[in-house]
């Protein structure tokens, strides 16, 4: 087998990094600005900061050869800015984060990708979407999220969960708070729970024609929108989702250094593990270089590395392509890979092709949310309020 890299891979040279960053700079400049500089000074500042932030991180990813370290900064910033932007938007539009019955009846509830697994069976059998959102137009329309999901699945597969999911950045961020995990032993069988959750919510959603995960379990309602507590049933739902948010998104990620919500509950993540089969990128282990130090098993945030996977030279089905195992491998035995090509082969080329797709997806998808978040923060600093 041929290899074009040293044993422990380094980043690209400075000249090559500048050229590669220049390519993303041009694309992101066009996509972030959509061809025009905002007249509002706060908007212009937000655009420039977002552009610099994105391209600095891309430069560092390429130059240092470290993927996860800088990806996580971007990914977590995206999640925080989504909360700032979304809540401000809801406060402006509705005056509160709670979802009114009127918005449900007017089909104006923002749609998110987590609903998709529950809609597929009803779409197939009734040609209807079981969600009170807007099909086209409006804020977070259903069709636009489906297009995004299809694009992400084709381009990144389950990489969506580490490069684009605007919720995933929260537990990713919390999983980095402590230097060492307090809870070290987790039964790896937990990684199959999201598949059970997926099956359960898909069946119950089909049976009741209702997005059951959103109504009963979604922890991210705590930082986006939720039903006002007007009945005992809604009170129980509120207790469940708040508990899940505190437990799976904050406390357990801090204590275990794992992405517990993504790894042990998320039905969308489970679905992406299955649809990932049609994606061309994966993470592979060069068995000749691997010394079985098990560092990758210790650091994988989703328990997608195991002794069996090291033996097989591939990750488990739940791998989110975050790059943490690649960064941590002392022998450079783990790398991004293009299906059908040699291992290790042209690992730098594989990495660059994956990074261009993944990074551009993250940068473009997050750009307006981060820009809006910055504008809101600037408003808060200058006027004392984030909303107009």
């Amino acid at each position, binding site marked *: 087998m041929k290899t074009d890299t040293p044993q422990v891979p380094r980043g690209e040279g400075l000249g090559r990094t500048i050229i590669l960053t220049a390519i993303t700079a041009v*694309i992101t400049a066009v*996509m972030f600005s959509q061809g025009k500089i905002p007249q509002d000074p706060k908007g212009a500042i937000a655009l420039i900061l977002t552009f610099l932030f994105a391209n600095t991180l891309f430069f560092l990813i390429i130059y240092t050869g470290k993927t996860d370290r800088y990806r996580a900064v971007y990914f977590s910033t995206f999640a925080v800015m989504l909360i700032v932007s979304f809540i401000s938007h809801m406060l402006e539009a509705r005056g509160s984060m709670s979802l009114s*019955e*009127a918005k*449900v*009846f*007017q*089909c104006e509830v923002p749609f998110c990708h987590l609903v998709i697994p529950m809609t597929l*069976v*009803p*779409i197939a*059998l*009734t*040609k*209807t*979407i*079981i*969600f*009170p*959102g807007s*099909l*086209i137009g409006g804020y977070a*329309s*259903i*069709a*636009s999220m*489906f*297009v*995004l999901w*299809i*694009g*992400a699945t*084709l*381009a*990144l597969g389950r990489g969506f969960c580490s490069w684009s999911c605007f919720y995933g950045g929260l537990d990713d961020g919390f999983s980095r708070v402590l230097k060492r995990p307090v809870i070290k032993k987790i039964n790896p069988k937990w990684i199959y729970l999201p598949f059970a959750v997926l099956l359960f919510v898909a069946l119950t959603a*089909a*049976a009741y*024609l*209702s997005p059951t995960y959103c109504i009963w379990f979604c922890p991210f309602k705590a930082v986006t929108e939720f039903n006002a507590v007007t009945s005992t049933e809604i009170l129980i739902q509120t207790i469940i989702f708040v508990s899940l948010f505190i437990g799976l998104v904050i406390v357990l990620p801090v204590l275990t250094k794992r992405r517990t919500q993504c790894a042990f509950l998320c039905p969308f993540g489970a679905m992406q593990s299955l649809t990932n089969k049609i*994606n*061309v*990128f994966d993470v592979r282990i060069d068995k000749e270089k691997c010394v079985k130090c098990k560092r990758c098993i210790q650091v994988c945030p989703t328990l997608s590395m195991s002794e069996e996977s090291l033996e097989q030279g591939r990750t488990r089905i739940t791998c989110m392509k975050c790059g943490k195992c690649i960064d941590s491998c002392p022998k450079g035995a783990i790398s991004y890979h*293009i*299906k*059908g*090509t*040699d291992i290790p082969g042209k690992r730098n080329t*594989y990495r660059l*092709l*994956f990074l*261009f*797709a993944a990074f*551009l*997806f993250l940068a*473009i*998808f997050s750009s307006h949310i981060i820009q809006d978040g910055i504008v809101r923060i600037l408003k808060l600093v200058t006027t004392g309020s984030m909303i107009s």
Partner: protein
Amino acid sequence: MPKIRSIAGYMWAGAAIIIVLATFFGSGFFSRTLVAASGVKISPLYSGGEVMRSVDHGSYKALIHRPVFDALIGESKEGFVQVNWEPLAGLPPVIEEPVDYNGDGKEDFSIRIDTKTGKATLTRINPLVLSVINTVKLDNGWVVRVQLKKD
């Protein structure tokens, strides 16, 4: 064969970058195409179903939707009929509406809504009419859903 697989892999990887750009550049076009090609709609359980009849009251109108008994397969034993009144500005303090939900020419129920308090009173004529499920003030009027039993 390995070479072909390798070339196919590289082509698919290169296409992934194009797919990312196309996803965002063409989001509006792809969204409209997806909806048009698939023919999907919002479930009538949420939208209230298609408007079957409109009754003009001068300053406002009543929109009577088709009865919704939709289930995953076939129809369910219980459903509802939705009635909207709009615009908000033209509504009287009290709305009284006789409704023939099944289009047989006979009144099935009558609904009375106090638009100040939202209190709804249902007068059932057809035994298949059960009760008021929701009465909600919208941005542009009022809506009520009345629970029905399948014939």
